[in-house]
């Protein structure tokens, strides 16, 4: 819904504009829902941290049930791929090429593609 030009200095609120929003790839294929945002580690008093990536995976469980998923299990989508933030978040890449699409790939290769007709359009 936002225009093509994104002026630098645009304001985003993490919860209002990013968390729990749908991420689509360049062909509008759903990639993930933003579960969390990763920031640089920073100390109060020092310079403000930058957002480095969008995170999905076990962070969702942590937000629902409490606790904190270990950083080793975060599935990251680097900010550098984000092309547009509007009602949805668009990335400039193919969902296929992302590491975090491994579950979808696994289900496809092990189950769905093996059923006759699974690779054909309806």
């Amino acid at each position, binding site marked *: 819904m936002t225009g093509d030009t994104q002026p630098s200095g645009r304001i985003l609120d993490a*919860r209002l504009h990013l968390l729990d929003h749908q991420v689509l790839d360049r062909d509008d294929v*759903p990639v993930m*829902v933003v579960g969390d945002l990763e920031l640089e580690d920073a100390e109060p008093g020092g310079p403000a941290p930058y957002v480095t990536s969008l995170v999905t995976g076990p962070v969702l469980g942590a*937000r629902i049930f409490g606790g904190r998923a270990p950083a080793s299990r975060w599935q990251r989508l680097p900010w550098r791929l984000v092309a547009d933030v509007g009602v949805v978040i668009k990335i400039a890449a193919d969902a296929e090429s992302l590491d975090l699409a491994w579950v*979808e790939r696994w*289900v496809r290769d092990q189950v*769905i593609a093996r059923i006759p007709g*699974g*690779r054909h359009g309806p």
Partner: protein
Amino acid sequence: MNRLLGVALGILTAIGGFLDAGDLVTNAVVGSRFGLSLAWVVGLGIVGICVFAHMSGKVAAVSGRATFEVIRERLGPRAAGLNLVASLAVTVLTLIAEVGGIALALQLASSVDHRLWVPVAALAVWLVLWRVKFKVMENVTGLLGLTLIGFAVAVFLLGPDWGELAAGLAPSVPANESTTTYWYYAVALFGAAMTPYEVFFFSSGGVEEKWTVRDLATSRLNVLIGFPLGGFLSVAIAACAAIVLLPRGIAVDSMAQLVLPVAQAGGMLLVAVVIVGIAAATFGAALETALSTGYTLAQYLGWSWGKFRRPAHAARFHLSMIVALVVAVAVLATNVDPVAVTEYSVVFSAVALPLTYLPILVVANDPEYMGEHTNGRALNAVGSVYLVVLTVVALAAVPLMIVTRAGS
């Protein structure tokens, strides 16, 4: 013809809401026990579902967002997760009843025991989900489902005393029924009319059909034709039961009794038409609930979804529908009464109803999503009133169910 096919989505959605296996029986039960004294609830439900389906269709057309995406965005993962669990429970319970209902309808036409039809019915549903285009699916099931108009024809052929029938429309509790039972059925009918998977299916269907702002009129037409038609037919079923079964002391307890008033009215031909209608309606509702299972899970978790994609390009979406169908067959294999199963979905509607309709109302007012197409004042007023009603109904559902032992 194009106009007619244009509203197939609305008709199919309404069939799932008003005329699925559980509702077919509930309508007849209500007619055979309460006459038409609960028809006002159906009217209330029609207005409510029209208002919120219209909003969800509008959001889908303008912003391209389906309802459960909006629910998670606005409510956050926790409340949306609670809604997901409750909605999935309602949807899967209904799916179980539909697969059982298709089997019962086939038994009416073949006298082969319905238990043997269950795996066949489930396989047929899956094949349609797997291979048939969305457009073809909704047109065929929507048009065949229209044969349920046979029930309305039956009411006319029975030639009731119209004055008496109209007098029965006034809300009143029959002498031999308790007030709590009356209100239990009122809540069940209202919950069925506004059952949340209708908006999940309707909005996702809009996305499947790639609606844009230009299709707002189509969306409105779908809502204004589909849901009132569904409600009208459900009142017709209740009227059939009230005219023929109530005076004979028959309290409906199975789908097989639905054909008796129709036979009295129109004979073999009308019975055949209505059986086709029942089979198509339960089949359509099975498709709607199976797809809704996939839509809600995929939209909450951000998976690729949609029948317009090849199954391999929406792998987890298709896998979840397969799992839901396997669960349905497994539950039916335990020999439970498929229709009794849906009575318990009232419990889960209690959680799902407010948590579904609140975010729709909020987003339909958000100019970031809707641009100039945000809700007008009248729509907001009606929507707000319904939100209050839904919350009251949701709070009352579980206590009423326990007190009345699910209406028995």
